[in-house]
């Protein structure tokens, strides 16, 4: 599948998909959900969270 096809499927530009793939842009939550829905997986399967530990 090309970047263009994926971009069209989730409603963004090819440049956006390219920037995500190259780790230069973190997608919005909405787009992350769309990508996860498209690939039929969890968001965590696609993106590794780079966050500090949260104290409870």
């Amino acid at each position, binding site marked *: 599948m090309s970047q263009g096809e994926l*971009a*069209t*499927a*989730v*409603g*963004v*530009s090819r*440049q*956006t998909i390219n*920037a995500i793939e190259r780790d230069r*842009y973190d*997608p*919005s939550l909405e*787009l992350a959900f*769309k990508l996860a829905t498209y690939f039929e997986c969890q968001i965590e399967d696609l993106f590794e969270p780079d966050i500090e530990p949260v104290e409870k």
Partner: protein
Amino acid sequence: MNEELTATQRVEKREQYKKWINWSVGFGVVSFFIATAAWILTDEPMVLFAGLGLYWLGCLGMGIGYWYSPVSVRDELEQRMEREASQTTLTFIAVVVIIGIPAEVVLNTTGVYTAPAAVRGAIWGYLLLIFVFGAAHWVAKRQYA
């Protein structure tokens, strides 16, 4: 209306309205340049007014494109880039105002140096822009309060 469109339709609409906006801007600018060239050749002011009218027509077309587009004309990465560029621009303006206005007032008041009118106009115009930003920020903040 956004909810009714599929992702593919959103992309199609975005491209469609982008094309319309670009075409409108191009039409307006090219018309103005042609009219200016024609005015230079003919020295007929009406040609220049016609060019101005066509330019405004192109601007109107651009505004209509933005207003009636059912989806955001820019996708989220483009919006992000625009936001970053805006922040950089605002920082530049703020630095010029913070450093420039006190300097302009002191130098002008003491008579040491009077900056050219264009420079003074730009500095004070930037201050006005900061007030506009403040007002826009206040409006935006109210949406999240």
